[in-house]
């Protein structure tokens, strides 16, 4: 299984729809300070089910919706879709391609979809349960947190190992 595509629109600084195609191997993301690189990683963490705004550097979930610039009005909805190639069947569904989508409206209403079919949040987190992918797993290493793995208290390090077991 691998990540094929990311589509973001209205999430944080992604005012317009952005689409990124990924290959196997290593993809680099580069650019000046404050241009939106870490927002790419936040968008992936969010669609995989992150429920804590703080972990996404916001005060509340409304901070995930594009809040406008000097020249543009604030957005009404944030939407992120992540598409996986599931040819090896690692995800417990019979589809070759699996696309998960999360939406948040200004009203506070959320929507979750798997391959364009509405579902619950829990269906998405269950999908990835044993895959090593997910918001608490070590597969998304945020900026500046790399030495927290080392500086954490002994009990917290245990959690990292429990996920591996």
């Amino acid at each position, binding site marked *: 299984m691998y990540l094929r595509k990311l589509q973001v629109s209205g999430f944080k600084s992604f005012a317009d729809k952005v689409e990124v195609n990924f290959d196997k191997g290593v993809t680099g993301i580069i650019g000046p300070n404050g*241009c939106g690189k870490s927002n790419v990683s936040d968008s992936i963490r969010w669609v995989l089910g992150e429920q804590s705004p703080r972990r996404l550097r916001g005060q509340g979930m409304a901070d995930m919706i594009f809040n406008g610039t*000097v020249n543009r009005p604030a957005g009404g909805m944030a939407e992120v879709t992540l598409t996986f190639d599931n040819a090896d069947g690692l995800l417990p569904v019979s589809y070759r391609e699996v696309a998960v989508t999360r939406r948040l409206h200004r009203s506070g209403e959320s929507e979750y979809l798997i391959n364009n079919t509405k579902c619950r949040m829990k269906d998405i987190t269950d999908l990835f349960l044993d895959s*090593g992918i997910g918001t608490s797993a070590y597969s998304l290493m945020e900026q500046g947190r790399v*030495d927290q793995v080392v500086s954490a208290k002994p009990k917290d390090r245990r959690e990292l190992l429990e996920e591996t077991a």
Partner: protein
Amino acid sequence: SVDLFLETFEKVKENFNRSFRRMFNGGRAELIMEEGDPMEAGIEIVVQPPGKKLQHISLLSGGEKALVATALLFAIYEIKPCPFCFLDEIDAPLDDANVGRFTNMLRNFLDRSQFIIITHNKKTMEMCDSIYGVTMAEEGVTRLYSMQFNKKNNNVQTLPPANE
């Protein structure tokens, strides 16, 4: 269950020492389970960079801590590879020699995992199969462009935009 945890712990411990020695070109590293109930006990890390004495990790430098953390991550990936892995400026505290060791280590995992790496470091960019440049040409609005690394002038250049 306790047995599964203890078995995983032993495997990570072994991998950790091996990946530490690769990152530091020698020395040794240990994971130690604290006394008491194995289902509750915390985990201590003790390391010995080559030529130095065994010491508590708080005395390590910023770059050494980042290397130890990376060695631990790779030790875990060996047991439970994650299909894709997103690393955000994990090479920032490293000097050039250690960035080289980090990228060499990464190459060992490419058959098992897909990596997405945010970096400002030219050496890391060089090893990427594909590169996306992120810009805010319009202030406050993020766009992405496909780029490639040009080995002749050691710099990145833009390909036709990705977002059309």
